[in-house]
């Protein structure tokens, strides 16, 4: 029933607004403003998100590998249970470190899905794999119980608690968790490898990957340098297999893929740093949308270079699936947000955002993505601009 409701909601929303405005939301990051362990706190959070003008909210499903719903698969058949202190996890003493978002009451995802429906936003997931925030405290229970699947570097070190999808058993587990999460009725799942450092080919020197290498490349030693294009191509197969299975299980829900660090030189961060070839996935029909999470413009000519990057993506996608472009609040390393464009171009933030919106529409983008909506990171005038924007 929840699934059916979600699908109906999607179709309404998409009909109503062809240029989608998508908010990526880590509800965890609202813990300081709102009591997100309560229905009231989640209501306040999602109302705050809706004020951005978003017609779609993709919420994070997990912190680390700890999922935010009472998963039987993750918690070994014990729904809504997470051991209070496991000596292999390192607790955080911050107030946020005491959050428990996998309770049965209130069910975090079910509540958020209902709130999205009430607020006229369609509901989906920002599936950030095993993201690294609170990286020890958030280690998944299943991962801890199965150390044989942990990530490993060529020179030996393990990444404890992080499981490699080169193991079929890990993909099986993640797909079971995915199936459980789908019962809450998301219409879209944005898969984000960027936030998952353990997803780097550097950490995939695990037995299945090495055995496959030996079988497929007889006589060739396993590349010791994980940057080696041959190793990246090799590891790509496991990440793509995981996405293929997600797509197969997703049914009529949309699987989007986030791509990062795009520049005019065509640097392929997602391939080189995460072993995921987004162009190949688009060609193969394994993703239903590309979300450009960030670009790296040439600051000598920021707007035209940004536009050239957008056009390059559209060329590569060649109409096979919709493309969404960023209206990004934060600047992180060389991934500029609104503030950096303001600083570099001298324009006001509203003008910068308007340019982002117009540029996304001009190149034929299907919408924009706000990465990510935290408490008041998009100012009121910016939100009004986003809300009011409609492509000419």
């Amino acid at each position, binding site marked *: 029933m929840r699934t059916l409701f979600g699908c109906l909601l999607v179709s309404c929303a998409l009909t109503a607004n062809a240029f989608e405005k998508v908010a990526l939301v880590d509800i965890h990051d609202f813990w300081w403003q*709102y009591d997100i362990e309560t229905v009231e706190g989640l209501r306040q959070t999602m109302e705050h998100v809706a004020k951005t003008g978003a017609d779609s909210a993709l919420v994070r499903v997990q912190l680390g590998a700890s999922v935010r719903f009472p998963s039987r698969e993750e918690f070994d058949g014990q729904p809504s249970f997470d051991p*209070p*202190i496991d*000596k292999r996890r390192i607790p955080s003493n911050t*107030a946020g470190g005491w959050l*428990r978002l996998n309770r049965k009451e209130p069910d975090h995802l079910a509540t958020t899905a209902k709130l999205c429906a009430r607020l006229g936003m369609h509901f989906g997931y920002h599936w950030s794999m095993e993201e690294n925030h609170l*990286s020890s405290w958030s280690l998944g229970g299943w991962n801890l119980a199965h150390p*044989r699947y942990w990530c490993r570097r060529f020179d030996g*070190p393990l990444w404890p608690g992080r499981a490699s999808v080169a193991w079929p058993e890990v993909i099986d587990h993640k797909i079971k968790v995915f199936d459980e999460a789908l019962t809450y009725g998301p219409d879209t799942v944005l898969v984000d490898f960027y936030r998952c450092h353990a997803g780097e080919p550097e950490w995939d020197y695990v037995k299945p990957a090495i055995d496959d290498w030996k079988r497929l490349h007889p006589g060739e030693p396993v590349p010791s340098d994980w940057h080696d294009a041959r190793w990246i191509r090799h590891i790509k197969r496991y990440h793509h297999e995981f996405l293929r299975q997600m797509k197969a299980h997703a049914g009529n829900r949309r699987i989007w893929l986030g791509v990062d660090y795009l520049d005019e030189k065509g640097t392929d961060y997602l391939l080189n740093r995460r072993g995921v070839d987004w162009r190949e996935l688009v060609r193969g029909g394994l993703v239903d949308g590309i979300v450009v999470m960030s670009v790296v413009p040439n600051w000598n000519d920021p707007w035209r270079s940004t536009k050239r990057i957008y056009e390059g993506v559209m060329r590569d996608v060649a109409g096979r699936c919709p493309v969404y472009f960023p209206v990004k609040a934060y600047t992180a390393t060389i991934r500029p947000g609104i503030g950096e464009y303001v600083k570099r171009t001298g324009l006001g933030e509203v003008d910068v955002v308007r340019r982002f919106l117009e540029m996304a529409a001009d190149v034929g983008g299907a919408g924009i993505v706000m990465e990510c909506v935290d408490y008041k990171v998009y100012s009121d005038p910016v939100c009004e601009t986003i809300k009011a924007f409609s492509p000419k």
Partner: protein
Amino acid sequence: MSGMAKTNGLAICLAALLAGCELVEPVERRICAGEEPQVSPDERQIVFQQLRNGSYDVGVRELATGAVRWVSEGPGDAIHPTWAPDGSVIFTFGHETETALAAHRKKVETGWNLYRWKDGRTEQLTKGRFRDYAPSVTTDGKTLYFASTRAEAQTGLRSERVQMFRMALAAGAKPERVWGPDNVCSAAAVSPQLSPDGRLLLWAGADGATDVWHVRVSRVEKPELAADLTPPTMYAYSPKWSPSGRRIAFAAVTPDFPDWGVWTADPQKGELVRVAEGTNPSWTPDGRSLVYDRDGAVWMKPLNGSFPRLAMTDDSDRAPSQVVFRVENPALESVHPLPKEAAFGSDDFYLKVKYRLDKPTKDLQLLVKMQYQKDTVAVVMLEKDTRPTFGVRHDDDTYAPLDSVHRVAGGRDHVLVGYRSGDAVYLSIDGGAPEKLMFTHRTLDYREPVSLTVGEKCACSVSLVEVGRGRPKEFPASPGLDELFGREVRK
């Protein structure tokens, strides 16, 4: 500091696998459902935690009859039970009745605290919005050791850190910090336990999100100088001294034994023995058997059989460091050629600078920069707020500096020593305890040295710059197992 043992100090190498071809392992015996078992000092009872109706309770089971008394029941979780010599049970209890934010706003004073149960009565030993856990009691019954987050602030976003504490075993006693990692995110020292002779401290430690847990031992008076008992490729936690203090049991995985196993270490014999599948081991008081948990059940196994074993070797590197470059009173913005000996590759090296900042400045102060053919790979600088920073470049082209938590006053000389060892960097200020940062990537190989620049963009005076291979004298080496066990435990 103890983590340095992982890469260049005391390292224990796997020297042999499977000493015997035919292994005749003794039969294990299932005791009951539960986890974290410990047999009582009188050997008549076993204490354990068990998941019952959605929360953990601690129970005491009579080994002869199987009768169980529940130390805790009802709402809330009781975990990590341990015996005191007088037959009382110490455990951690937590019951969250508020949401995280509500508890924070109401300044709730309870967290996961330690309790003592004796003769059917329970008393609270620690208080506060912390997680106090993994306790142990000294052989004389006077002192309680435990892990805690109590040294950490309740604000900020995402720090994870656990340190070791001790206190007199009495309600109202004040916990005292023993030691723990400073300024390192996702680092911890957990499961502290004093050796039966009171000389050595044992714990499990991790130095960063990508670090495996190590079983560590130090002299009790010098916990900052610890030896890793377990090899770098072994993930090991939950250690327990044997009653004689000659051996240590712990849970671990290794590349060759990738599922959770109960292991023992015998430093005098120099061997690691895999006893059983399971976790959270502890010794029977006679030292002849281990109890442990697996799949939610408590098991017991005698040690009078043959088991897979690995050899331990102590290959501690205590070679003195070697200075490869040194300049006194260099001019600001002077550029000095680096000798070929500064091609450190992936070996350990250090960069020392003595400087004086005459007045605080709002600008970043670049004290020393080492230039290699490929890139700038190592710098020592002062952030805008005068916090020192030492950073190296990684093989993924990112630059992740260790930013000290300490601010350094102007108007007098200071000595900063940055040290790169393995996948970590360390920084010591004026001879103080080093701070540490571990990386998810390997640091760059340092080949083809070019130059060293002093005081670029710097409103300060520099009186010494020194670059050297190996561990600088400001970073004392951890003691070896021979020192810790050969002379102390053996007698």
